[in-house]
């Protein structure tokens, strides 16, 4: 049971110390906290050290996963049409949810009748995991997947639910999962950003930048937007007249100016790291475009990802670039499928078949290719792949014979693969309708705790002191879903 949902702040370990009678006298408390290393961590939080801020750091404990690729299905795919097999829905078709099933009907849309999956489910792999025909290629990897069918979240509106899926809370201003990851682990490649976000060409998530923000932590940890072709990073190149040679000369001049400045200020650690940052930026100018340059990939690989074919070209490129990024030591990559509004995302109000048919066809082959490719290169063990949206969809239609489904935060599915995850398993259940999580419920804090755990981070120990409180991604909630870990 997840306490944080009941109480905005809840009982943390320190509060527990407090409750035990430390009282307002303070002395005992301070020494208790000091022995916990509390003040030390407070002191360290804002410290500028001479080492690059994103230098690799040891994890809290050994873990298989070194990187994470988060496949974010923006707009919320329907669980009962993808990874949550509910044959009972056939039986209930045309009826309404029983009256004791209460829910918030987002946006006041029409409430229709229970509707079975729009495409058929088939068993995949030796495990026989049931996966629908929206994901026929992913189904071939069923034995790699740990599907969690009992996810639930705190908002039924896209903007806030996306922010929650990324930062743990429904309001803006907190660091995102990727930011916590690079804060905890640094990154292996200093010539590339440690945390890369690739948006759908149709647009970003509606709640924008807060989804990859570093919140109250330094901007060092925020996600860098990467475009899959051309210049991948903002301001990676100046105007055309500044040729590479012109800029090299400029940077040499700058280095001389800065060295002169530094010589007069010995011990200026920050000055020295800023000097380094220019060289990093210069290297990034070569390395980042090289990373997105997929020309050197074999035709076979390109075909596997569906690059150069429609409708897979865009997501195929992104998936391929994601592999190239983790290959180069980037810590956290997030790929959005769907952007902008409504049907441009997975937000299938109008028609599941039309919407999921379209978006599924865009991502199914690329995702399957990514799993194959990572496995072939021996990267799957060290790369955690996460698939999911910000919530799920209702098992009923939006009116009689209406082909769409409304938002549903009460129950939805996500899956993990690689990175030390058990394959071919299913965890947690929704009720017989696929409406709400009922067995082994997994709150989004639990999802976050598990992802951090797989990366070698203890979600309770990974904290950042801010405005009088040690903040963490999972606040006072979060349970590592050990059942999906190999």
């Amino acid at each position, binding site marked *: 049971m997840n306490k944080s949902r009941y109480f905005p702040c809840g009982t943390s370990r320190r509060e527990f110390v407090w409750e035990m009678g430390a009282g307002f006298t303070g002395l005992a408390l*301070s020494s208790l906290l000091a022995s916990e290393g509390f003040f030390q961590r407070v002191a360290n939080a804002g410290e500028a050290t001479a080492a690059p801020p994103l230098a690799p750091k040891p994890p809290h404990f050994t873990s298989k996963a070194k990187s994470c690729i988060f496949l974010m299905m923006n707009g919320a795919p329907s669980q009962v049409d993808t990874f949550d097999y509910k044959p009972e829905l056939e039986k209930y078709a045309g009826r309404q949810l029983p009256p004791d099933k209460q829910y918030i009907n987002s946006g006041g849309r029409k409430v229709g009748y229970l509707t079975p999956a729009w495409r058929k489910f088939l068993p995949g792999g030796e495990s026989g995991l049931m996966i629908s025909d929206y994901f026929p290629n992913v189904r071939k990897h069923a034995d790699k997947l740990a599907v969690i069918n009992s996810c639930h979240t705190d908002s039924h509106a896209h903007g806030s639910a996306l922010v929650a899926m990324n930062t743990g809370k429904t309001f803006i201003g907190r660091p995102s999962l990727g930011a916590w990851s690079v804060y905890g682990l640094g990154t292996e490649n200093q010539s590339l950003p440690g945390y890369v976000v690739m948006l759908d060409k149709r647009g970003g998530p509606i709640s924008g930048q807060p989804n990859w923000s570093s919140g109250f932590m330094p901007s060092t940890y925020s996600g860098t937007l990467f475009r899959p072709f051309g210049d991948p990073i903002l301001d990676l190149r100046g105007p055309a007249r500044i040729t590479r040679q012109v800029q090299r000369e400029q940077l040499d001049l700058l280095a001389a100016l800065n060295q002169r400045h530094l010589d007069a200020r010995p011990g200026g650690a920050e000055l020295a790291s800023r000097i380094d940052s220019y060289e990093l930026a210069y290297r990034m100018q070569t390395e980042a475009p090289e990373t997105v340059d997929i020309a050197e990939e074999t035709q076979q690989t390109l075909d596997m990802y569906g690059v150069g074919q429609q409708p897979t070209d865009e997501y195929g490129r992104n998936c391929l670039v994601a592999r190239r990024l983790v290959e180069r030591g980037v810590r956290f990559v997030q790929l959005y499928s769907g952007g902008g509004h409504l049907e441009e995302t997975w937000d299938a109000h109008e028609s599941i078949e039309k919407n999921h048919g379209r978006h599924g066809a865009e991502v199914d082959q690329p995702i399957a290719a990514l799993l194959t490719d990572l496995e072939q290169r021996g990267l799957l063990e060290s790369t955690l792949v996460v698939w999911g949206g910000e919530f799920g969809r209702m098992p009923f239609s939006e009116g009689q014979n209406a082909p769409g489904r409304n938002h549903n935060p009460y129950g939805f599915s996500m899956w993990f693969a690689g990175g030390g995850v058990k394959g071919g398993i299913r965890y947690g259940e929704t009720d017989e309708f696929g409406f709400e999580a009922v067995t082994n419920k997994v709150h989004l804090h639990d999802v976050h705790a598990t992802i951090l755990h797989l990366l070698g981070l203890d979600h309770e120990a990974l904290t950042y002191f801010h405005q009088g409180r040690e903040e963490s991604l999972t606040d006072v909630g979060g349970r590592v879903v050990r059942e999906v870990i190999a």
Partner: protein
Amino acid sequence: MRKSEPRKARNTRKKNIRASLSCISCLSWLLLLSVGSLAAAEDKPTFESHVLPILKAKCLSCHSGEQPKAGLDLSTRRSVMLGGKSGGAVRRAAAESSLLWERIAAGEMPPKGTKLTAEEKGIIRAWINDGAVGEGGDDDLAHGAAGREIGEEARGFWSFKTPLRSTLPTVDATQLVRNPIDTFILHKLAASQLTLSPEADRRTLIRRAYFDLLGIPPAPEAVDEFCADGRPAAYERLIDQLLASPAYGERWARHWLDVAGYADSAGILSEDRFLPLAYRYRDYVIRAFNNDKPYDRFLLEQIAGDELVDYWQHYENDDALSDEIIEAITATGYLRCAPDSSRPDFSTIKNADSQYFYPTINDTMQIVATSVMGITLQCARCHDHMFDPIPQEDFYRVQAIFMGAFRPTSWVPQMERRLTTLSKSQFEFATQRNKEVEENVKKLAADATALREKYKQRRFAGQLAKLPEEIREAVRIALLTSADKRDEAQRTLAEQHAPSVQPDDKQLDELLPKEYPDYQESRTKLNDQIAAEQARRHYYDEIRAVYDLPGEASTPFLRRGDALTPGHAVGPGTLTVLEQEIPFQWQPPPAEAKTSGRRLAFARWLTDSRHPLTARVMVNRLWRHHFGEGIVSTPGDFGRAGSAPSHPELLDWLAVELVDSGWSIKHLHRMVLNSATYRQSSGLNKGSGPIDAKHPMGRSGQLDLTPFSSRDPENRLLSRQRLRRLEAEAIRDSVLSVAGTLRSQMYGTTIGLHVWPDGEVTVHDSLDHYRRSIYLQYLRLRPVTMLNVFDQPVIEINCTVRSRSTVSTQALTLLNSKMMTAAADAFAGRVLSEDAEDAATQAVRLAFGRVPAPDELQSLNEFLDSQQQLHAKSLVEPAALDEARRRAVADLCHMLLSANEFLYVD
């Protein structure tokens, strides 16, 4: 016993609600909408009639009596609401997150015996979702909270005692002392066998003072003049001159706006609504700093400006509001900085108070507490503060201060919460006049329409008459038949003749005046009348202000900080721990009073000259911006979890000095800037031990700590000034200033932004917009990329300390961004127009405020020559030579603006 709600009734209700919700279906962020909220009160299941019978049958055998299981007694509504050891059992109108429902629904309770039937579960769920009401109303929930005793030791914590002006310590190095600040600093340094560094050179001093006070660099002429000023007190005069500059307010207002959490958008919702009136508060803050408004007055106005100047009395009785009154209500914009996305249609949202309204009050309190009081009051919202002697009750006492204005139960949507700059008589006059204008314009517009219709008919008949007689009638009928009802023949006729006989309205508006001069004449007359009428309209300004709402404000104590588990009522108050020293004085106002006086009483308490926190917190903030670090390094937290002051006696001395000077911020600036401590060099002292100058930190990234600095590695004792990187806004302003494109226009509406397809947010590229960064739109969801990269905070609530990062994206921004390349070009243009012969020297003078050393100049010129040749290769004659030169100079200028010497202040 009441049956579970019949489906038919439920569906009808759903339908009604759906209808009422359709207008807000675009509201994609709504967190909680539910079907239950609009149910008539008499429909609601009650605890006694509906729920208790179920609990009696299935639960009370364990959950009642002397020692109920898990401390949860389910026998009365009060005990259910109070909850047990695991916390509250029921959250009003939120069954899904109520422990009671969760355990029952999951089948975990009862653990043995007969489970609840689906119908019984339905009743419990419905009861909670309909508000968990009881037949006895809410009175039975009132109970006093047993506050934790605050011990003597807690009371004695340094920041809760009134600061006293201690006697100055004795120091040996009296020749170094310029003012009392130095005695405190030297005394501590001496204890560690350290002393102050020598005074920085004049060039360094003037740059430091300019950046600290104005946020832009001095012009080369100002540097030369200051360096050449041999008269006594040249430095002190410089400080006075800078403090008198209007640019000072623009610099220091920005610091305050950070802690106030100022933004030009409402936040939270994805629409992040723009707030067109917010800038007035920003302008108020700039004016306040420039006018050296006494800090106590500054706070009184911001927290209770309306009550301070007796706004309502003036509003009712004056002919017009004076500037002083308008200024005071503008100041209350401070309390409007917290995110508040409320709209009128939020009243239809279930639990909107806990979802939206309470958070706005809580954030407002957090802003006040961290910006002015330096305490983390927000920690006491759900439980007694963990570190500081702040019982949870205190949080709600302070909340009661603001409940006069902010009422979750009768919330005023943010866009409707505003005052005008008019007195009542003016307002009534304007309203009356505008109503008249509206009516007259409506009448005239109707006349115009009628006139047009008349001529339209006339023309129709006229044009028809021109047609051959045999088809005339057929055409007339065809055209008067609506398009979808015409038969084949009529369609053909209509297609053929409509253009001439029945043109569309837009064409008619062109044709009629030409064809009918009398129409033209009448129409012009009507238009003139409308314009004249419109000119009579009264326009007036509006202000995002805070003011009390009518009626008595009640403030419930919220158990666990949860608005869905309210408890007893709490009256206004402050921090118990401080009230012994500074009593909070407030009398309930007479019933007819327009305002409760709560905020004014609070602001007076806060600005009491003996208040332990107010002056200390402000002194520390000011110190921080002059030394890069506060005397207390956690400026938003002076409590036990904050850091201890490095120089407690100095902090207190300055706090008393601030109060004794009549709360003059500029006086405090003078004290600090004129001290030897501020004026010392930022370099390490000579003879401070062996340092490998080439690799001071080694390539390993480890700082080589010298024997000298190991005595005070973080320079907490201030044996030298601190090297500081400019903040985001100062970087942009300085770049524009050096490039010669910065406009000094002050105040007014915000400067709009441009969002590029690639996500970059820039200022619209127009010279008009090359104004100081404080005037740029500050949107919560769309930060200006260049400023954001350099750590301008994304405003969630407020920012008491900016983070300071060094990342390669900053390097990319400086090297490649549109803004920087444009600035480099402008800078080059300026340099070439001022001194084309010796461009390198002029560029360095402008950027760094110094002339280059001979060897440096030589390498700069070599760079210019080689860069010129490089560019010449890619250019075509005849303009090539000049253009290549110009580009080479721009390349140089660009690097000067990216150099550490430009970004850091010594």
